[in-house]
């Protein structure tokens, strides 16, 4: 899908990155100043590298050795900005069809009605772009980028300025776009939960260099100790099968080889897998499956690593029975008193009420 090998220097900042990926959603992750947005701009053609090559879906966009640098309007890469950047002098409909106007008729693969329907912007079409709320703006921005039937959608922190509920909503929409329009997505994000839920692969950047590339759950877990927000933003993603919904108690049972996971919500059933995000602070550990407890979800696993330093905290990484990785945040005190060690078999206890149904993403 995408192959990048570029170098660029701007004043003090230098970027050198080479990666290839076939992921349906590839995430670029890193702190601010890591170069992830610059990299996205290079792909979209808003900036040119000093040297290197970029190809998307087999189309060569940049090759400095051959003096090739396709201008942005010819790249057919849909861009979604953090603040949507709708055209304020046009109404929503004109914003949405702006790109389609410039798309050759033979390449208009994405139908207008389907986009309007999927993104739920039908009732906004006659509004002025400036009168929309943040979430609405972002949906219109997605529609606008989609309707030029792009080779690739580049999303630059599309959810960074939205509140929690709007973020969940946009994430659900991005999953639908991926499934319904089969357009690959390059997602620039510093939020671990977005990447864990959406991405199939992640490229992790720091100060202009790639520091890791791989599956999001593994790549991000390795860096999680240093994540912004400390222990509260350490999140793991595990995949489970949707099971039966208990209408009386309003809970859904998800099946995982390591144990049953109870979610306090109605997860639309059907035989499918979902990706579940679990905060490390919501996971407790026990040697035996406790019986006199309110916690219903106990997952069997083995300790793969224990991350400790001088802080009071320890991050215990588990390999779950039947696959999947889960991080538990504990104190060093409990690690010492329980005598936890690598290789030990433990149960991970998860409070059902801490699992939010909106954190369930459709699994790839």
């Amino acid at each position, binding site marked *: 899908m995408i192959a990048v090998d570029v170098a660029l220097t701007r004043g003090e900042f230098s970027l050198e990155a080479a990666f290839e990926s076939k992921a349906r959603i590839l995430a670029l992750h890193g702190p601010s100043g890591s170069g992830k947005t610059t990299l996205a701009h290079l792909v979209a053609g808003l900036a040119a590298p000093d040297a290197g090559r970029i190809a998307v879906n087999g189309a060569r966009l940049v090759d400095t050795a051959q003096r090739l640098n396709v201008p942005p309007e010819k790249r057919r890469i849909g861009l979604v900005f953090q603040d949507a950047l709708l*055209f304020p002098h046009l109404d929503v409909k004109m914003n949405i069809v702006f790109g389609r106007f410039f798309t050759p008729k033979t390449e208009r693969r994405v139908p207008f009605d389907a986009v309007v329907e999927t993104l739920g912007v039908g009732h906004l079409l006659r509004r002025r772009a400036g009168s929309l709320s943040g979430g609405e703006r972002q949906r219109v921005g997605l529609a606008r980028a989609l309707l030029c039937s792009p080779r690739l959608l580049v999303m630059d922190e599309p959810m960074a300025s939205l509140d929690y509920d709007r973020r969940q909503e946009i994430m659900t929409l991005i999953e639908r776009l991926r499934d319904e329009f089969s357009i690959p997505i390059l997602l620039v994000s510093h939020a671990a939960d977005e990447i864990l839920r959406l991405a199939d692969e992640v490229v992790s950047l720091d100060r202009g260099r790639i520091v890791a590339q791989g599956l999001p759950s593994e790549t991000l877990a390795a860096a999680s100790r240093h994540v912004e927000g400390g222990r509260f933003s350490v999140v793991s993603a595990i995949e489970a099968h949707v099971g039966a919904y208990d209408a009386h108690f309003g809970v859904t049972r998800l099946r995982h080889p390591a144990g049953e996971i109870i979610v306090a919500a109605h997860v639309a059933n059907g035989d499918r897998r979902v990706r579940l995000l679990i905060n490390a602070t919501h996971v407790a550990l026990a040697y035996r499956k406790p019986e006199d407890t309110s916690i219903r979800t106990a997952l069997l696993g083995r300790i793969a690593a224990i991350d400790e330093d001088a802080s009071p905290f320890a991050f215990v990484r588990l390999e779950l029975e039947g696959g999947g990785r889960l991080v538990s945040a504990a104190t060093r005190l409990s690690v010492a008193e329980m005598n936890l060690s690598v290789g030990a078999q433990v149960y991970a206890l998860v409070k059902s009420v801490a699992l939010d149904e909106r954190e369930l993403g459709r699994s790839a």
Partner: protein
Amino acid sequence: MTLSDLSPSLGFSPPELTAIVLSLKVAGVATAASLPVAVFIAYALARWRFPGHAALNAIIHLPLVMPPVVTGFALLLLLGRKAPLGAFLADHFGVVFAFRWTGAALAAAVMSFPLMIRPIRLSFESIDERLGLAARSLGANRIWTFFLVTLPLAAPGVIVGTILGFAKALGEFGATITFVSNIPGETRTIPSAIYSLTQTPDGDADALRLAAVSAAIAIAALIVSEILQKRADATRAGR
């Protein structure tokens, strides 16, 4: 029915009416002809960095600080019948500026240019450049992007610049009288006519009437610009 037929009812004498019509023509042509140039140069000054950026900016603003008579004199030296450039234009294109109404329009355009360009440039500078990038990524080339996104967003500044330029052109006197003199029916605009009237005995009442016309046109222009700008602002704010 022509304007001169109306003159008795409006209370203007034929020479006064000629001066008013000529003034509107000179200012209108000066504004219309310099607007595209002003938009282009304002855009270049706002968005591009090139050698000579500061020099161009200074040259444009020169008529604002120089005595108008000097500007008119410079035009005369450059474009007079016997000046090389003036003779060249007259011989090869049949374009003559000296002592013609076209010269009055040129003098007005030069003098009003700095006033016209400033609000347009500020307007371009206030536009988020990334909106242009968004348009490019959606498939619009530079020219489409300019006409569909950048220029519409700069509309309030373009309107203000046009009105200010028109008002200034209407009132231009020093450079005009130096460059094209004060010929009734050809180059005697309202300010020149007022000046002539003040030089004749008993001309004060007539001068006052023309001054009132002048003020009325200027005030009307300001009101129109205010209304258009409000409308453009409302559009931008999304109402």
